[in-house]
């Protein structure tokens, strides 16, 4: 298939930008749909800098690459011909869904979530240069450390599906933030249900 020339040159620009930033930061986080998620900067250390009072470099926040619009929705896209980064930059398609939600005090995946994760698992398995970081979260209720453990359990649930699909364990990292980084600030069921989640954060080497 052929991409129309406009999209092609856009992708080229995106790739050049991505390449340049990859050279400067070693790894670049990609955010689906350009939601402005902070770039994961692996080069930061941030240890002594904080303690001794000097301002470290760890605070740098940059904006993730905007998702490339893959077309007008009618174009047929040949995933096989796209690089991993191109696929991740698409705002539509199955890989654009990168948040998995959970019930209260539960790490159980719904069948919809499993279907989404199977797609991610296949993608990761087929692209060795891709890594994913699974960030587990909980709602604010209960104790903070218990919620750290719960966020970890959720991330582990997601990880198991990805590995089952053939992703290798060194492609998948987990971290739990418990209730420390809520998506929604409210104190009701609507906010809580959005905060009980695992976010898939991709990097492409």
């Amino acid at each position, binding site marked *: 298939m052929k991409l129309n020339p406009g999209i092609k040159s856009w992708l080229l620009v995106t790739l050049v930008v991505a390449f340049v930033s990859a050279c400067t930061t070693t790894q670049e986080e990609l955010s689906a749909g350009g939601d402005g998620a902070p770039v994961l900067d692996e080069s930061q250390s941030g240890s002594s800098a904080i*303690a001794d009072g000097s301002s470290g470099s*760890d605070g740098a926040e940059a904006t993730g690459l905007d998702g490339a619009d893959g077309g007008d929705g009618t174009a047929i896209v040949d995933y096989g011909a796209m690089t991993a980064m191109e696929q991740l930059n698409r705002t539509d398609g199955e890989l654009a869904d990168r948040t998995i939600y959970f019930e209260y005090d539960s790490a159980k995946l719904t069948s919809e979530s499993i279907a989404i994760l199977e797609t991610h698992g296949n993608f990761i398995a087929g692209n060795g240069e891709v890594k994913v970081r699974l960030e587990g979260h909980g709602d604010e209720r*209960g*104790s903070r450390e*218990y919620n750290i453990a719960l966020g*970890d359990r959720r991330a582990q649930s997601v990880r198991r599906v990805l590995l089952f699909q053939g992703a290798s364990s060194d492609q998948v990292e987990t*971290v739990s933030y418990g209730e420390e980084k809520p998506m929604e600030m409210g104190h009701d069921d609507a906010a809580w249900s959005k905060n009980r989640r695992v976010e898939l954060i991709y990097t492409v080497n």
Partner: protein
Amino acid sequence: MQLTKPITYLFAALMLVMVQSANAALTIDITEGVDGALPIAVVPFDTSALTVKFPVDLAQIVASDLNRSGVLKSMDRAQLPATPHYSKQVQYARWRNAGQDYLVVGRVLEKSSGLYTIEFQLLDVLKQRQLVGRSMPAKKRNLRSRAHQISDFIYEQITGTRGAFDTRIAFVRAQPDAARKYVLQVADTDGFNPQNVLESDEPIMSPSWSPDGKSLAYVSFEGKRPAIFIQQLATARRTKVSGFRGINSAPSWSPDGKHLALVLSKDGSPDIYTMNTATKRLKRLTEHRSIDTEPVWNHDGRTIIFTSDRSGSPQLYEVSVDGGKPKRITFEGRYNAAANLSPDGRYIAMVHSDRGQYKIAQLDRETGNLIVLTDSALDESPSFSPNGKMLLYASTRGNNGFLFAVSIDGRAKHKLSDQAGDIREPVWGPFKSK
């Protein structure tokens, strides 16, 4: 308590590295008064002998300390029938008629510039005699601490229990709009003198005081992963003691200060470990596919109490520091977590939930009774005062977290309110060494 000791030593303990001036001081609101609190009048101290204006209101600090205890109730200053500064100026009948049981009078003398002598007397109005009188040196820098020591004296004279006013608390402040989003702070028990211990863009969690009060262990996500650090407060020197794959969390100091209990998931699910802080050697205490977290040491250092959901919902368990089979110790309610032990080991405070509300409750290990101490919906992080008489905890109001303290009988409660940010995870530090 000896107060005539050289105060340089106290200075050293108080000296924290300030990353930047921590401006937002906490203030106190008494939210629930107590019937039956003992009436005490604290007369403003005489500072008329000083050449320059005295920088703090000692009597005000003492009066509000005593009020917070719930055991004493200080008389409104506007109602004071007289303003004596020496016991021999006191007309006891006037104070008895004003309904007061106790009276505190005092004065400040200047030895040289910035160097003071504070004298005070605690008087028993009914017996018409002095209970205690003290003279203490003070420097401009430690005047508030001196005032808290006066409160400790008075409290101990009247109740027989050591006062815990001249101690410190640590907590985490989140400030979403600031350059640094998370700050670990240490402050006096009335919220004054907040000082920054660590600032970070990433979450800081679970501060734990070393038994000597000189260090804090905490969890920092500054490397985008959790790691446990131990930081000396005076020097800000710190060591990363745990940075394994997965969870590194919930550090808790052993009573002898030689070990940390902590939670690691490097071997699978979160389990309880102990670490020798000198050798960094780990010992695994639990091995279960459930969540095991929030370890705290019993006062004898022989057992550890922790949260586990091995029964299906979070409950408290106790395990020997030598390992073995944990024993469940909470049975009331579907959710019991985040244990904190009273200094004598008799009471366990916890986050307790029955019907969707998370409150602070206390289990009496002698009687087996569980009493709920708070009445809001999102309470967490209970922490006993070093004399075991108060519990500090965090509660959400609106979009912010605030610190509260409640007496262990649940009768007196006060809020440490704050204008800026969202405060959580308070931990009450140990007594300062005498």
